[in-house]
C-alpha cells in the first residue's frame, strides 16, 4: 500500500482530471444542445402538426338534440309535448359482459324482459363504443338508487332527455300518432346527420310532419379528458328546435264526438266546409299512444293486435267501404250536371226496379215503393229507384267521371301518410281485378253507393263540404299553422287550391234542399235527428252492406249476427244556410245510418254550434294523463 501511494503523481492526476472533465463538459454541452435541438424540432418545426393533434385529442363533437315541436289544437291546447325524463344508457365496451352487471343492476332498476331483450338485440348490431338505451323513462327513485351505486357500473349512465307525452293519448291516436324509438330502418331513412335522434315519428302527424317536428341536430365542441368525460363546452352550433304545429282540430269537438260514439266502432270526420280544415277526426276503438313512445310491452301489443276491432287501424285514412246512400246527393248532382235530369223531373218508384229484359229486381227500402219522386224527395226519402235508373241512363263511364270530380277515388290530401284513395266503380277498375266484362247491373247498384265502391269518411265529408260551401272541393288538412321556435309567430300553412264540383249553383241548391228535407222534411230518413235543433241541418243517411253479394239489399240488418250487420252512415252539415261544419260518420256493424250514425253527427253539430257537451263530460280537459306535470317549453334541448 505504502509503495503504491508513493507512486501517485498528484499534479499529473489533477491535470489528467482537468482534461477528462473538460472533455466531459464538452460532451454535456453537446448532449444538452442535442436535446434542445430535438425539442426545437418538435416545438417549432413540427408545432402546427402537434397543435392539430392536441386539438383533436381534446375536442370532441357532441350532438345536441333539439326539443321536438309541440302539437296544439286550434285553441292552443297542448296535445303533444315533451317532459324531462331520464334513461339508462349502456356503453357495451366499457360495461363489459352483461352477465356480470345485468343481474345486480336489475335489483337496483326495474327491468322488464322486453327491455333486456331489446338491449341484447341492439347490442349485437351496434358498435361497442356507442351507448345503447337500456331503459327509458326511469322513475326518480330509481335514478337516485342508481346514482348511489353508479361507481359499480362503469359504462352505464343516466342520461337526461325529453320524453314525448300525449296529453290525450287515445283521443288523438289516429290524428297525432306517436313517436317511437329509432330502429335500424329509420336510421337509413333519416340519414347520418340525424343519427343523434332517439325517437322518430311512426304514425299520424308525428310521422307526416317528422322533418318539421324534429328540428335540426346541433353540435357542441366539448373538451374531453382522456376518458372521454366532458370537461367543458368550447364552442357550439346551436340545434334548431322542431317546429310547433297548430291543428285545426278542436279538442272539445273531438271529445264530444268520441263521447257520442259510446261503445260503437267506426269513424267520423268533421271539417270546416269553408276551408277543408279538419275540426275533428275520430277512429274507434282507439289506444293510448303513450304506450308506444319508449317501446310497448309484448302483453300490451298483443292485446292491441289480437283485438278483433283492430284499435291500431286508422279507419279514416286506411279504411273505407261502400258509401251506400250517402252518395245519392252526389249522384243526383251528377244527374243535374249531365243534363239527364232537371231538379223537378220525377221518377216512379214501385218498390222494385228491373233492367229491361232482365229478371233480377233491385229494391227500394219501402216494399210498395215511394211513388213519384223528384230529386229533393229522392234524397229525403232515399229512393233507390231514382238512382238505379239515373245511373243506368248515365252509363258507368260518365258516372265514374262525375264521381271522380267530387273527389272519390282520389286522395283528399289529408296530411297523414298512406291514405286510401278508395274506388269509384268503373270499367278500368273491374278490368284490374277481373276478366269478366262490365255488367249493367253493376252500374245500377253503383248508383246507390254499392258494388265496387270504396269511399272513406274523409272523401264523404269532403264532397259533403263541397255541397255545403257552394261547390269548392277543398283538400283536407289537419295542420293549420306552424311556428319555427317558441318566440316565432304562427305561420299559416299555404292554402291549397280547391277544385269546383259544379258550375251551376242551382243544381247545388236543389241537392241542398233535398238534404235539408232528409232531416227536416215530413218523410226524411233522418227526421229524428233534426228534432229540437235550434238550427237547420242538411244531411243524408246511408246504410251499406257489409256482405254485399249475399242476401238481399232490403233485408233487415238487425236480423243478422252483430258482426255481420250493415254499416250505418251519415253525412251532413249545419247550419244549413251558412254551414260552418260538415261531418261524415261511419258506424261499423251499426244498422241504419239514420238511427246509428246521424245522432253522432247531431252531437257534433250541437257541440260545435251550441257549445253543448255530451252529458257526463266536463270541458276542463281533466282527462289529460298526468295533468299535474308542467309541460316543457319547446325550446329546451335534450342534453343539458
Amino acid at each position, binding site marked *: 500500500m505504502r509503495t503504491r501511494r508513493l507512486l*501517485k503523481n498528484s499534479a499529473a*492526476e489533477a491535470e489528467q482530471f482537468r482534461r*477528462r472533465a473538460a472533455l466531459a463538459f464538452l460532451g454535456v454541452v453537446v448532449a444538452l444542445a442535442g436535446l434542445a435541438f430535438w*425539442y426545437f424540432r418538435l*416545438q417549432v418545426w413540427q408545432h402546427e402538426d*402537434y397543435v392539430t*393533434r392536441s386539438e383533436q385529442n381534446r375536442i370532441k363533437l357532441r350532438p345536441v338534440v333539439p326539443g321536438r315541436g309541440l302539437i296544439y289544437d286550434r285553441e292552443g291546447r297542448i296535445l303533444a309535448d315533451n317532459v324531462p325524463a331520464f334513461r339508462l344508457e349502456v356503453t357495451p365496451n366499457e360495461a363489459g359482459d352483461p352477465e356480470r352487471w345485468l343481474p345486480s343492476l336489475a335489483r337496483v332498476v326495474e327491468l322488464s324482459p322486453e327491455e333486456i331483450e331489446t338491449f341484447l338485440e341492439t347490442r349485437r348490431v351496434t358498435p361497442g363504443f356507442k351507448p345503447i338505451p337500456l331503459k327509458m323513462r326511469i322513475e326518480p327513485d330509481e335514478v337516485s338508487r342508481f346514482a348511489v351505486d353508479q361507481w359499480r357500473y362503469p359504462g352505464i349512465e343516466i342520461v337526461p332527455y325529453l320524453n314525448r307525452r300525449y296529453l290525450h293519448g287515445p283521443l288523438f291516436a289516429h290524428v297525432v300518432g306517436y313517436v317511437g324509438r329509432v330502429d335500424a330502418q329509420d336510421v337509413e331513412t333519416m340519414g347520418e346527420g340525424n343519427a343523434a335522434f332517439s325517437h322518430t315519428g311512426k304514425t299520424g302527424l308525428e310521422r307526416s310532419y317528422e322533418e318539421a317536428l324534429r328540428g335540426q341536430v346541433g353540435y357542441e365542441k366539448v*373538451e374531453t379528458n382522456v376518458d372521454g368525460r366532458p370537461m367543458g363546452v368550447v364552442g357550439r352550433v346551436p340545434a334548431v328546435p322542431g317546429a310547433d304545429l297548430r291543428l285545426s282540430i278542436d279538442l272539445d269537438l273531438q271529445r264530444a264526438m268520441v263521447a257520442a260514439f259510446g261503445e260503437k266502432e267506426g269513424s267520423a270526420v268533421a271539417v270546416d266546409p269553408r276551408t277543408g280544415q279538419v275540426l275533428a277526426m275520430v277512429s274507434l276503438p282507439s289506444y293510448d299512444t303513450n304506450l308506444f313512445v319508449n317501446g310497448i310491452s309484448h302483453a300490451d301489443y298483443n292485446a292491441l293486435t289480437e283485438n278483433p276491432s283492430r284499435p291500431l287501424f286508422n279507419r279514416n285514412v286506411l279504411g273505407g267501404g261502400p258509401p251506400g246512400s250517402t252518395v245519392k246527393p252526389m249522384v243526383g248532382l251528377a244527374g243535374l250536371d249531365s243534363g239527364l235530369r232537371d231538379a223537378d223531373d220525377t221518377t216512379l218508384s214501385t218498390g222494385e226496379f228491373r233492367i229491361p229484359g232482365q229478371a233480377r229486381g233491385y229494391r227500394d227500402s219501402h216494399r210498395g215503393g215511394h211513388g213519384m219522386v223528384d230529386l229533393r224527395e229522392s234524397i229525403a226519402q232515399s229512393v233507390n229507384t231514382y238512382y238505379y235508373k239515373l245511373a243506368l241512363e248515365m252509363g258507368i263511364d260518365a258516372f265514374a267521371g262525375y264521381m271522380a270530380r267530387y273527389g272519390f277515388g282520389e286522395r283528399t290530401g289529408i296530411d297523414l301518410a298512406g291514405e286510401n284513395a278508395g274506388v269509384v266503380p268503373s270499367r278500368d277498375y273491374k278490368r284490374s281485378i277481373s276478366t269478366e266484362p262490365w255488367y249493367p247491373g253493376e252500374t245500377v247498384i253503383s248508383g246507390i253507393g254499392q258494388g265496387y265502391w270504396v269511399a272513406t269518411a274523409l272523401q264523404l265529408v269532403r264532397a259533403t263540404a263541397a255541397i255545403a260551401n257552394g261547390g269548392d272541393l277543398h283538400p283536407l288538412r289537419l295542420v293549420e299553422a306552424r311556428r319555427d321556435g317558441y318566440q316565432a309567430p304562427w305561420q299559416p300553412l299555404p292554402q291549397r287550391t280547391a277544385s269546383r264540383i259544379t258550375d251551376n249553383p242551382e243544381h247545388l241548391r236543389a241537392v241542398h234542399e233535398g238534404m235539408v228535407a232528409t232531416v227536416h222534411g215530413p218523410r226524411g230518413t233522418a227526421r229524428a235527428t233534426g228534432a229540437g235543433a235550434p238550427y237547420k241541418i242538411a244531411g243524408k243517411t246511408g246504410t251499406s252492406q257489409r256482405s254485399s253479394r249475399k242476401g238481399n239489399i232490403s233485408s233487415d240488418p238487425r236480423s243478422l249476427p252483430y258482426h255481420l250487420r250493415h254499416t250505418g252512415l251519415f253525412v251532413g252539415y249545419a247550419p244549413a244556410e251558412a254551414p260552418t261544419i260538415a261531418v261524415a260518420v261511419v258506424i261499423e256493424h251499426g244498422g241504419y245510418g239514420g238511427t246509428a250514425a246521424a245522432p253522432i253527427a247531431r252531437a257534433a253539430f250541437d257541440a260545435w254550434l251550441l257549445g253543448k257537451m255530451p252529458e257526463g263530460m266536463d270541458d276542463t280537459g281533466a282527462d289529460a294523463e298526468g295533468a299535474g306535470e308542467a309541460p316543457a317549453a319547446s325550446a329546451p334541448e335534450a342534453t343539458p
Partner: protein
Amino acid sequence: MTIILRWLLDLLVRFTRTLDLPLLGALLALMVIGLAVLYSAGGQSTSLVFAQGARFAVGLAAMWGLSRLPPNQLRNWTPWIYGASLVPLLAVLFIGEGRHGAHWINLGVFYFQPSELLKLSLPMMVAWYLNRQALPPRFSTVLIAAVLIGAPTALILLQPDFGTAMLVGISGAFVLYLAGLPWWWFGAALGAVAAAAPAAWFWLLRPYQKDRILTFLDPESDPLGAGWNIIQSKIAIGGGGMTGKGWGDGTQAHLNYIPEHTTDFIFAVLSEEFGWVGVVVTLALYLFVVGRCLWIAAAARDGFSRLVSGALGLAFCVYVIVNGGMIAGMLPVVGVPMPLLSYGGTAAVSLLAGLGVVMAVRAHRPVHGH
C-alpha cells in the same frame, strides 16, 4: 440594534459559509420552476406543492449538513457508508414493495428507495478506492472498481429497476472515466454490451422492458397501447411551440392525456406550458449546475474530492438527458425522474445531498496559490 443585526448577519454568513452560492442559486431556481410546474400539473392543488416543498427542505438541510463536513472526514467514512447502504439494498429484495418489482421499503412514515442511496455512496466508494491507487488505473484496479460498481448494480437489476441500475452504474463509471481510465476500456465495454445485448434480450429483460424498447423504435406501431405515453407526451411538447400555452393552460396535462404528468413526464408539462423558451432556460440551468460541479471538482484539494464532485455532476446531467430524451421520443422509456422537477422524495433528497458533498469540496478548497 445594529449590533444585533450585525450579529445576525454574522451568524447567517457563518451558517451559509459552506454553501456555494452560484450553485445554490441555480438549484433554487430549478426548484421554483419545479414547484410551479408541479402546481399546474397537479391540477392547481397546493397539497402536492407543499409536500414537494417539504422534501426540498429536507434535501436542502441534508445539503447544508454535508457541506459542513470536511471531505477528509467524508472520505474516511466512505467504506462504512458504502457498506451500510448495501444493507437496505439487500433487504428490499425480501421486504420491498412496488409496481413492477420490489423498489421501496415502507418505513411507515414514508417510502424509502434504497437504490437512491447508492447514487451517492457508490461514486464515493469508487473514488475512495481509486484515490488510494496510482492513476491512471491499472488493469487490476479497474477490475476491483468494476466489482465495487457491479455488485450493487446487479442487486438493483434484480429488483428489477433497469433505470436506476443504469444510473448507479454510470455514476461509478464516471469516476473511472474521470480518474483517467484508458480509452480502450470504453471500446471494450461497448463491444461487450453489443455482444451481451442479444443475450439480455432473451434472458434478462422483462416483457415490459422489451415493450419499452420496441415502443421506442416505433411508437406509432401501437398508438393506443405501449406507444400511447410517448405519442401523447410528444403531442404535449410539440403543442407547446416556442413560448408555450401558458402556465396552467396545458391541455394535454390537464385532461390527463400525459401519463405520470407529475413525475416522470413533468418535463412534458413544462414544455407544453412554457414552450421551447422554457425548455432552454431549464436546460441552461442544468448545464450551469453540471459545469459548476466540474469547476469545483477541478479546483479540489485532493483526488477523492475531485472524483466525487465530478462524477456527481455528470450523473446529474445523465438524468436530464435520459429523462428529457425519453419523454420526447429520443430515447427509450426508462423510469428516470427529471432532477428537482419530478414529484418524488428520495430522488430529490439524495440529489441535494450529493450536491452538498460537492459544496463541501468547494468550501474546503485550497487557498489560492497553494
